[in-house]
C-alpha cells in the first residue's frame, strides 16, 4: 500500500472525500446563514434548530402521514420556511435597526425553546430515518466504499448552492435584494415592497437550513440536539468566508470540510477544533474573511443605551453598602450554597461587562478565562498543596496572562469579528483542557481541597467560606466600580463611543482596550479560581463555549453597561438553574422564553429598564424620549 506522510493513500483519499461530503452540509448551512446575514444583518442563531426542524419534519411526515423522502425534500423546507416567515414578521422585524447582538439573543432564545420542546415530545436519543430505497447501496471506488446516498448529498448541495448564488448575484430579483440591503428607503421608493422581500429572504434562508436537515436525516440520528453543535462550526465557516459573502460561504464550506478531512487523517483528535484555528488565522490576516470585502459591515450599529445621568458618588457608595449588607445577611434566609455560586457568577458577569458594556467589545470566549483559572487554581491547591489564596492568585495570574496574549491579537478587530476571534481562542483552550493530562478530561479535576486561608482560617467551615466568597465578590465589584468611574473608565467609554475621536484626542486607544481586556480576563479568572475552591471541582463545563454564551446572556438580561445589571442577571440565571432544575426539559424552554421576552420588552436589561423608568418618573429629569434617540448617551454608573 502506498503511503503519504505515513498515512495509507487510500485512507487519505477516503478522508478527503468524506470531508467533501461534510463540506456539502457546511456549505448549505453557511449559505443560509450568509444570505440571512447579508440581506438582513441578522445573525441567525436559530439556524441549527431550523436544520433540526427540517429533519424532524421529514420524520413526522413519514411516520404520521406516510409521506416519503422525496416529498419531504420539498415539503419540509416549505413548512419550516413558513415558520421562518412568521418569526420574521412577528419578532425579527423589530430588531433591524439595533445591534446584531439583539438578533443573536432573540434567535438563540428561539432555538432553545424549539430544542427544549422537541426533546420533551420526541425524546433525546433520536429517531431512525431510513435511506430512500432508490439511493441505498454504493460503489467501490478502489480506495473506499462510497454510498450512493453520500454522492447524492454532494450533488444536491452543489446544485442548491450554485443556483442560490446565481439568483442573488446574477438575476434581477437578486439585484433588488442587494440594493435593498444597501438602501432600503430608495428601493422602496422605486415601488418594490422591501419588507415583503426581506421576509421572504429570511424564509428562504431558513428553508435552506431545513433542506440540509432533510438531507442529513438518513445519515445522522434525527434528534432535537442535532443542530446545536453544528451551529458554532457553521458560524465559523461563515466568518472565514466573509460575513455576507455568498460565494465565500459556499467555497469555505467545502474547504473547511476538506481541511477537517485532512486533520482526521493525520491527527483525528484535533478535527473538531481545527476550524477555529483556521478562523483565528484568517481573521488576523484578512479581517474581512477570505471573500469578504467590507469588514465595517459587521460592526455593530448601536446598543440600546441609557439616557439617565450617572448618580453621584455618594449615592453610589450608599447603594454599594446596602448591597453588601444584603449579601452578608442573605444566608440567614437563602441557602448559602446558592448565594456563593450566584456571587461568583455575578463577579464573572461584572468582569465581562467591563469589556462588553463599557468597552463595547463583546467577547464570545470569556469561558476560557473562567475555565483555565479554575484548572490552574484547582491543580495548585490539590497537587502543589498551595493555600487557597495562593492557588487563587495562580489561577488569576494565568487568566490575566491569557487575557493579555489573546487580547493583544483580538482587540485589532471589533464587533462580530472580535467576538469570533475570542471564540476561536476559547475553543483552542477548550481543546487543551480536554487533552491535557492534568485536567482529568471530562471527569474534571475532582476533590479540590478548600484548605486553610493564609494557613489560618479553615475554609471548610461554611461561615468562613461564605465570608471569603463575599469578600472576594465585594472586592472585585468595588474595583470595577472605581475603575468605571475613574479617568481610565471614561477614556474607555470615549473609545467605545467614537474611537477615531478618542484617538485624535491623543489617547492610545489600543493600549486602553488591551488593559481593559486583561483586567476583565483577570477578574474572570478570579471568579473561576474561587469557583474551583468553592465547588471543589474544575470541569470542562467552565471552558465550553456555552459558558461564554451564558455569561453574555446574564449580562444582557441584567443590563449591559450598568453597574448592577450583571449582578442581577447572574442571580436570575443561577436561580433558574438551581430552583427550576426539577422541571426537566421545560427549563430550556423557559430559558429561551425569557431571552426572547428580554429582547422584545426589556432591551436595556432588568436594571437598565429600572433606571430608565425611575428617571422618566422624575419630573426634573430631561425628556427621556429625545435622549433615547441618540446613541450611547452616558450610561448609568
Amino acid at each position, binding site marked *: 500500500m502506498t503511503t503519504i506522510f505515513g498515512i495509507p493513500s487510500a485512507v487519505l483519499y477516503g478522508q478527503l472525500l468524506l470531508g467533501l461530503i461534510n463540506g456539502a452540509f457546511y456549505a448549505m448551512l453557511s449559505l443560509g446563514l450568509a444570505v440571512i446575514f447579508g440581506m438582513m444583518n441578522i445573525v441567525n442563531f436559530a439556524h441549527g434548530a431550523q436544520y433540526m426542524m427540517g429533519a424532524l419534519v421529514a420524520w413526522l411526515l413519514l411516520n404520521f402521514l406516510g409521506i416519503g423522502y422525496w416529498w419531504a425534500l420539498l415539503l419540509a423546507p416549505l413548512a419550516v420556511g413558513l415558520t421562518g416567515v412568521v418569526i420574521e414578521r412577528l419578532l425579527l422585524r423589530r430588531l433591524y435597526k439595533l445591534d446584531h447582538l439583539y438578533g443573536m439573543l432573540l434567535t438563540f432564545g428561539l432555538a432553545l425553546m424549539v430544542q427544549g420542546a422537541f426533546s420533551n415530545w420526541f425524546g433525546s436519543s*433520536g429517531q431512525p430515518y431510513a435511506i430512500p430505497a432508490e439511493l441505498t447501496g454504493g460503489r467501490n471506488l478502489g480506495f473506499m466504499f462510497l454510498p450512493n446516498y453520500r454522492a447524492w448529498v454532494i450533488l444536491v448541495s452543489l446544485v442548491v448552492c450554485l443556483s442560490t448564488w446565481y439568483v442573488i448575484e446574477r438575476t434581477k430579483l437578486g439585484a433588488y435584494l442587494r440594493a435593498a440591503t444597501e438602501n432600503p428607503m430608495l428601493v422602496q421608493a422605486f415601488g418594490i415592497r422591501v419588507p415583503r422581500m426581506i421576509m421572504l429572504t429570511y424564509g428562504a434562508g431558513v428553508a435552506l437550513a431545513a433542506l440540509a436537515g432533510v438531507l442529513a436525516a438518513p445519515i445522522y440520528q434525527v434528534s432535537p440536539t442535532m443542530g446545536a453543535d453544528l451551529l458554532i462550526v457553521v458560524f465559523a465557516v461563515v466568518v472565514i468566508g466573509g460575513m455576507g459573502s455568498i460565494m465565500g460561504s459556499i467555497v469555505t464550506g467545502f474547504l473547511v470540510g476538506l481541511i477537517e478531512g485532512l486533520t482526521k487523517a493525520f491527527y*483525528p483528535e484535533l478535527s473538531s477544533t481545527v476550524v477555529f484555528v483556521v478562523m483565528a488565522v484568517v481573521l488576523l490576516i484578512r479581517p474581512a474573511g477570505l471573500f469578504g470585502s467590507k469588514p465595517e459591515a459587521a460592526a455593530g450599529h448601536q446598543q440600546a443605551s441609557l439616557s439617565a445621568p450617572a448618580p453621584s458618588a455618594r449615592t453610589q457608595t450608599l447603594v454599594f453598602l446596602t448591597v453588601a*449588607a444584603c449579601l452578608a445577611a442573605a444566608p440567614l434566609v437563602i441557602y448559602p450554597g446558592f448565594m456563593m455560586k450566584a456571587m461568583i457568577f455575578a463577579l464573572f458577569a461584572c468582569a465581562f461587562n467591563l469589556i462588553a458594556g463599557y468597552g463595547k467589545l463583546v467577547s464570545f470566549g470569556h469561558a476560557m478565562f473562567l475555565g483555565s483559572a479554575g484548572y490552574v487554581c484547582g491543580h495548585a491547591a490539590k497537587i502543589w498543596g498551595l493555600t487557597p489564596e495562593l492557588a487563587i492568585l495562580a489561577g488569576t495570574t494565568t487568566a490575566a496572562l491569557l487575557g493579555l496574549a489573546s487580547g493583544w491579537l483580538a482587540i485589532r478587530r471589533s464587533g462580530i469579528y472580535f467576538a469570533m476571534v475570542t471564540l476561536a481562542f476559547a475553543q483552542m483552550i477548550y481543546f487543551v483542557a480536554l487533552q491535557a493530562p492534568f485536567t482529568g*478530561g471530562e471527569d474534571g479535576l475532582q476533590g479540590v481541597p478548600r484548605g486553610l486561608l493564609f494557613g489560618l482560617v479553615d475554609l471548610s467551615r461554611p461561615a468562613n467560606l461564605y465570608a471569603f466568597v463575599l469578600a472576594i465578590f465585594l472586592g472585585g465589584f468595588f474595583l470595577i466600580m472605581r475603575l468605571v468611574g475613574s479617568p481610565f473608565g471614561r477614556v474607555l467609554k470615549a473609545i467605545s463611543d467614537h474611537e477615531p475621536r478618542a484617538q485624535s484626542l491623543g489617547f492610545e486607544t489600543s493600549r486602553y482596550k488591551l488593559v481593559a481586556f486583561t483586567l476583565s480576563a483577570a477578574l474572570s479568572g478570579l471568579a473561576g479560581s474561587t469557583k474551583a475552591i468553592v465547588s*471543589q471541582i474544575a470541569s470542562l*463545563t467552565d471552558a465550553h463555549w456555552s459558558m461564554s454564551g451564558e455569561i453574555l446572556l446574564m449580562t444582557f438580561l441584567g443590563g449591559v453597561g450598568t453597574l448592577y445589571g450583571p449582578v442581577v442577571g447572574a442571580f436570575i440565571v443561577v436561580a433558574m438553574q438551581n430552583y427550576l432544575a426539577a422541571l*426537566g426539559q421545560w427549563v430550556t424552554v423557559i430559558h429561551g422564553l425569557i431571552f426572547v421576552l428580554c429582547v422584545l420588552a426589556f432591551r436595556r436589561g432588568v436594571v437598565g429598564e429600572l433606571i430608565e423608568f425611575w428617571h422618566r418618573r422624575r419630573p426634573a429629569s430631561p425628556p427621556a424620549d429625545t435622549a433615547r434617540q441618540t446613541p450611547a448617551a452616558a450610561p448609568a454608573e
Partner: protein
Amino acid sequence: MQLTAFNLMRGLAAALCLGSLGMAGQASAQISDDVVKIGVLTDMSGQWSDMNGPGSLLAAQMAAADFGGTVLGKPIEIIGADHLHKADVGVGIARRWIENEKVDAISDVTNSAIALAVQQLTRETNRVALFSSPGTTDLTGKQCSPTGVQWVYDNYSNAVGPVKALIDKGNDTFFIITADFAFGHSLEKIATEAIKANGGKVVGTIRHPFGATDLSAFLLPAQASKAKVIMLATAGKDMTTAIKQANEFGVTAGGQILTAPVMFISDVHALGLPTAQGISFIEGFYWNQNDETRAFAKRFFEARKAMPTALQAGVYSSVMHYLKAIQAAGTDEAKAVSAKMRELPVNDFFAKNGKLREDGRMVHDMLLVQVKKPSESKAPWDYYDVLATVPGEQAFLPLAQSECALVKK
C-alpha cells in the same frame, strides 16, 4: 465602611454556626428530619435523558410506592433534578439537597464527572449514593466510598464480557474506535487488556472528538484495517451515529462484526432494528426476560410509553434495596444503612442473589444479548436474543484486583 462589613460578617458567622449546631443535634434521631428523602440527579434534557432521565425518576417513585410509601413509620419522598451535564450545577444541586433539603440518598447520577464529585460529597457528608448510570470503574476503585454503591454495570463488565465471547468464537482481531475523553480511554484500556489476556490482538485504534457530527471518517480506517471486530468504545449519540454510518458504508455487510460495550435498549430503539440488527453487547437487564421483569416493564410502560432501560430498572432495584436496608437497620444513618445493604442479598426482578461487595460494586448476573433481525421481532420493544448469561463473578472485576482502599487484602 470596613467596620460595618466586619460586624456583619461576625453576625453572619455566629448565625451560621448556630444553624449547623442545630442540624447536628437532630442527626442522632432514628430517622433524621422525620423523612427519608431520595434525590434522583440525572440528565432530564440532554442527549442521555432517554436512557435515564425522567424514567429514572419514575422508577424511584415506583419503588417508593411499592415499598408502601413509608419506612419505619416515616414518609418516603422522591425528588428529581436536571444536572444539565454541568458538573458545577450537578454538585451544586447535590450539595443543596444534602445541606438544605434533608436528602438522605442520591440516586442515578449520569455523567462520570458529576458521579465522582457526588461520591466525594456523600462520603464527606455521610449520605448514601446509589449510582445506576455512571460506568466509570473509579467509583468502586480508587474513588470507592463506604456509602456509595454502583448498581448496574461498569466499563469493566461491559468491555470484558463481549471480548471473551467474541474471541471464543474465533474473532480475535480488534479495531477500537474510542471516544476521546476519560470514559472512552478507560473502556479502551480495559478492552485492550482483556483482548490480550484472551489471546486476541488489537490491530489499531483511533480516537474521535466527543460529539463529532460525522463518524464515518473514523470508520474508514477501521474498515481498511480488515480487523474482524470493530469495537465502538463510545456512547450515546456518537455511538448510534457510528452504527448507522457503519451500515451505510457497508462495514457490517463486508463481514466485520460491530460491538458497542455501552449500549442500552433506548439506543436500539432509536436506531431501529434494520440498522441495529446483529450487534451484540452486554446488558444489565432486559425487560422481556421472564414474568417478573415483564410485570415491572408493563407498569413502567403504562406511565412512560417506553420500556425501562437497565439503568432505570437499576434505579428501582437500588432504591428498593436501600429502603429495605433502612427497615432492617432501624435507622437511616448512612454508614449503618450501607453496612446493612452490603449484608442483605439483592433479590428482585432485576437481580437474583445479587451481592453488594465492600467496594460498593453490586455483583449480579449480566446478559450477553444480540439485537434481533426485524423479521424475528414479534412485538414492539422485542429487541434482544439473550445469547448467554454471564455469571456475576466473571462479569465484574475480581475483588482481588480492586484498587479500592476499603477492600481488605
